[in-house]
């Protein structure tokens, strides 16, 4: 592996965002392709971070700093990847469902998914079923993620799935759900494709759903 690729990986692990643009430019100058920089530089770094996080050796703020370092590089690679029509790991839209103003869990999932190489569109909180439908039409994501913290707002997940069905786009996406009161049983019951019990599990599940893990 070229030296610059391993430097990219190390800098992601260390969360050193400042050096990422320079290193990314250097890799491009050396004639490496955007896809190769992503696959052999950035992803091995983030994979290591994920492993260390699961082992309890790294903590959320460190993971997010690593994800940010990765994004600094991705900002340069994204247009190049689009030019050659190379797919990212996948595209995901996320939101806390209608009636629910709880943001932090969903934001964590967004950041973890970015770290896992996803193109993430965070729709925010209190997102109506129609807004999910619009976003699916606009971004054409691989995945839709929904979050709810309240038992009272969980039902909006089912309504969102119904709205996607009615709009005829349900089968273009995989749907994953999460949040404190949500369970696998509930996911099965409302016809979601997957459930994850925390943000790290969610990003892993997302990679599994797009066949990247």
């Amino acid at each position, binding site marked *: 592996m070229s030296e610059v690729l391993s430097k990219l990986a190390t800098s992601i692990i260390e969360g050193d965002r400042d050096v990422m643009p320079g290193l990314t430019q250097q890799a491009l100058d050396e004639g490496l392709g955007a896809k190769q920089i992503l696959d052999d530089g950035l992803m091995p770094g983030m994979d290591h971070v994920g492993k260390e996080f699961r082992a309890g050796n790294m903590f959320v*703020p*460190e993971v997010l700093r690593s994800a940010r370092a990765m994004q600094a590089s991705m900002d340069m690679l994204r247009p190049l990847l689009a030019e050659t029509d190379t797919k990212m790991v996948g595209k995901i839209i996320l939101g806390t469902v209608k009636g629910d103003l709880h*943001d*932090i869990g969903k934001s964590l999932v967004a*950041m973890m998914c970015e770290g896992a190489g996803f193109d993430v569109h965070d729709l925010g909180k209190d997102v109506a079923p129609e807004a999910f439908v619009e976003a699916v039409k606009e971004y054409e994501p691989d995945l839709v993620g929904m979050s709810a913290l309240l038992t009272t707002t969980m039902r909006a997940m089912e309504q969102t799935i119904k709205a996607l069905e009615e709009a005829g786009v349900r089968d273009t996406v995989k749907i994953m759900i999460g949040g404190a009161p949500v369970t696998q049983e509930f996911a099965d019951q409302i016809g979601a494709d997957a459930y994850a*019990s925390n943000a790290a599990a969610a990003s892993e599940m997302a990679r599994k759903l797009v066949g990247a893990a």
Partner: protein
Amino acid sequence: MRANYQVNSGVQFRMLSEDQLEELFNGVLHVLEYTGLEVHHEEARGILSEAGADVDELRVRIPSHIVKKALALAPRSFTVFARDGNPDHDVHIGPGRAHFGPGPTCPNFIDIETQERRPYLKSDVPLVARTVDALPNIDFCESLGTVSDVHHELGALYEFAGMFPNTSKPIVAWSYDRFDSEGIHQIAVAEAGGQEAFERKPTYVHYCEPLSPLVSTFEAIDKLLFAARHRIPLIFTPCPIAGGTAPVTPAGIVVQAAAESWMGLVLAQAVCPGLPFIMGGVLSVMDMSQMILAYGAPELSLMMAGVTELAHYAGLPLWQTGGCTDSKTLDEQAAIEGSLSVYFSALTGGDLCHDVGYTESAMTGSVFQLAMMDEAIGYARRITRGIDVNEDTLAVDVIGNVGPNGHYLREKHTRRYYKTEFWYPNLCDRRNYEEWAQMGSQRMSDRSIGRVQDLLATHEPSAIKPETEQVIERVLAEAEERVKESA
């Protein structure tokens, strides 16, 4: 710059008032002056007489000005050093610093492989010492048992010989008599590089135990004289039992225990002025239905807090007690009794808190209880550390930057503090249900056992010098020779 601004560093705990402490203090002086103690050691009676005590056959009464002089000579703060120079393993005794470690002399032990109760063996000593060396909140070492499978006079010597190479944390050395003390001291001095080097940086504390009520036994005094003459920091700790060998009331037992301990103080300071002296003892109740000294009693914590505050009032560090239980197994009772006494002990700032890992009312040592209590000590230490209030921790600017609806996960402020402001458990489980179930639905006791076994499989304490190993072999061989001859 602020004027008249007061900072509380850590949580504030105080049980007794200044007036109450003065009352206890005067009670101790009264007992020493008017009742006195029996001192079963002729040479010691001579020394005490010369120091100004009134000696009447075995009975020694000490005027209060002599006691006060001895108190003034003993240091409140001093350091017991790691044998390998590792500053993290040094124990700095001083105000507000609570340290923790196991206790000595349980006849039984919970086997590390089988978890069954059986007599304490020589082969257990290195395992306990290595676990102590590895556990982050255990600061000093004792063995948790009396070695049963060597000659009955040599248990203490084999104990020290097994502990010393297996931990560089300071050891509190218990012994039967002066012969043990000599052997133990030769080992420590060999590693230090001579008596002078040892005196500059002592690596162990000598433990002596007088008898309640009011008897300084020959062995306790003889060991004290040895320690004082070799400038070995000293613990002189009685073990009175309220309602049995001491008054039933907490104030009464505190007074008696202090009198018993301060007899040792006066003698030690007469022999070696300025000798680091740690006041005892272990104070608890006699359970009037089971006739045991209860190690899990709430009164133990109360009495220990009383004697700690008295010690600090008098300017002495204290040999605290906690992390122990009357339970026979690693269960909820063990967790409650151990954790509450650990927490209460931490609040008092009692200087060296021992008996962590005692179960079955001190009949059985358990390294698993020790590991579970390591977690409780970490927990207690986070609480007693308290809250820092300053411009940066107030975070008024950070709150402004994040504003409504934002989050703090990406703030530098979060990254700066989340590792030091939050306590991270080693044994307490915070996984979600699914992950916990996936990991085998383990109980706290399972995880405590697993942690000990992991540490023993991976942790290597720093080695002693090769010449010290030779000294250990020689000391043990000579001791074996001595007991053979006397047989």
